[in-house]
């Protein structure tokens, strides 16, 4: 049986079972859409969190009256630490300005105070600090050992809270991702099985007139692959359309306008399409197997 015959048979078969095929494909589409939708939300949250997360860092106070020449050395040592993203030197004047800004209307309290009462400091930004707050602790410990460093501040309490939060978030995301994937796979395979059940008489007849398993399975597998492709494809197109809608602010209330959303990375898209096809293929294959015996 050549490929052309196979494709022709598959297409004919789809035409003859249009309703069933459309319904099954819709189930595939919806299952995948749900999974992708939450992936998209996750990716965007992650994206926002990453941007926000770069504001997390460690403040390094230097010893009072430190030798000016030591500062570049410390700077380089800080940068060399694994996980450090960038390092900014905060002069005494800069620190004083920040305090003034914090006090706002109450800044008159600082009138006549000399800026030098604040120490020199470095602000060390840590990579992925939001997702792995324990890194801050590790890096802070390393910094403490550097010569000329007086004190390291990284908001111990705050990091602990963050740890709990990111821990929960991670667990929730992983659990729901697994649940969604599992459900999608399960629902799709159940639907395919219902479909094959409904056609078992046909399989039996084909077998009795001398069709090989390959001949019988061929079009079904072809259809399954197409179904996986279609299902995932439609889901992705639908998702992309809503993504465009939302990010162009057409449907959303004004205040979200101008918000930068990201779409799913193309690797994930390809992966999902592939998985969808494999899932439909395997689901069909295993549903048919028991009817193809003897």
């Amino acid at each position, binding site marked *: *049986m050549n490929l052309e*015959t196979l494709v022709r*048979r598959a297409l004919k078969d789809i035409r*003859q*079972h249009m309703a069933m095929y459309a319904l099954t494909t819709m189930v595939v589409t919806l299952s995948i859409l749900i999974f992708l939708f939450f992936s998209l939300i996750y990716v965007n949250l992650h994206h926002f969190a990453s941007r926000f997360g770069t504001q997390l860092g460690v403040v390094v106070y230097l010893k009072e009256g430190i030798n000016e020449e030591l500062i570049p050395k410390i700077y380089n040592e800080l940068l060399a630490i694994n996980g450090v993203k960038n390092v900014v030197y905060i002069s005494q004047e800069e620190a004083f300005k920040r305090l003034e800004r914090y006090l706002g209307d109450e800044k008159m309290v600082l009138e006549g105070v000399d800026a030098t009462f604040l120490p020199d400091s470095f602000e060390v930004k840590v990579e992925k600090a939001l997702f792995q707050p324990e890194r801050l602790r590790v890096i802070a410990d390393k910094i403490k050992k550097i010569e000329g460093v007086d004190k390291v501040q990284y908001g111990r309490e705050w990091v602990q809270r963050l740890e709990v939060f990111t821990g929960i978030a991670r667990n929730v995301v992983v659990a729901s991702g697994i649940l969604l994937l599992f459900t999608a796979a399960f629902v799709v395979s159940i639907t395919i099985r219902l479909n094959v059940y409904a056609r078992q008489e*046909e399989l*039996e*007849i*084909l*077998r*009795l*007139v*001398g*069709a*090989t*398993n390959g*001949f019988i399975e061929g079009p079904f597998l072809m259809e399954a692959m197409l179904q996986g492709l279609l299902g995932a494809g439609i889901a992705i197109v639908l998702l992309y359309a809503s993504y465009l809608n939302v990010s162009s602010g057409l449907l959303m209330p004004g205040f979200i306008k101008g918000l930068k959303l990201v779409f799913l990375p193309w690797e994930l898209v390809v992966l999902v399409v592939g998985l969808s096809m494999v899932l439909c293929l395997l689901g069909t294959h295993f549903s048919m197997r028991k009817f193809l*015996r*003897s």
Partner: protein
Amino acid sequence: MIERDDGIPIITLASVTKRYPHDIVALDDITLSLEKGEFCFLTGPSGSGKSTLLKLLYFAEQPTSGDIFIEGINIKTIKEAHKPIFRRKIGVVFQDFKLLQDRNVFDNVALALEVVGFSHDQIAYRVNKVLESLGLGGKGRRFPQELSGGEQQRVAIARAIVNRPPIILADEPTGNLDSVRTMEVLDIMDELNARGTTILFATHDERLFEGTRRRVVRLRDGRMEVGY
């Protein structure tokens, strides 16, 4: 009686017994062989085991004991993967037709050729010819549901004979046909037989073999009553 003694029989049943679950004995120690090119009637009252015997021959059921040989090969030794090859050598008219409801008449008949891998043109030619010969010309695009009972039965016959198999097993193939159509079918079978096809024809209609001198195997409650 047409018989060509060119060696081994094409079908042999050796002390075959078929027991269905709950101790229903459908066939009891049947020994029978058909020579190549033979035309044999299989008869007996309702429930005597005719269909069961045929089912064993097309591998729809397995014998509880005894051996079955097709072209000298014990079917127990046939691998699963090779069964389709054997099935293609056997054209079966099923008692309940077994037509695909969602394919039209043409496609149903073409199936037996597609399975073997015939070309598009050859399929069209052969199918149309066989439909014509069974009085179904012009009904190729109908679906089984749009045919009368007798027409469906003839589609089933068409599918069984279209790929000119060396063996034809016909299970009550004229139960829904009037006497004229029945004679036509018998004539077609005769013609195929004359070209060397071995035919096992199960029927309860005594008239079909009353005049002929063909072999008649009679079953009653799963036992063979009369040999030749």
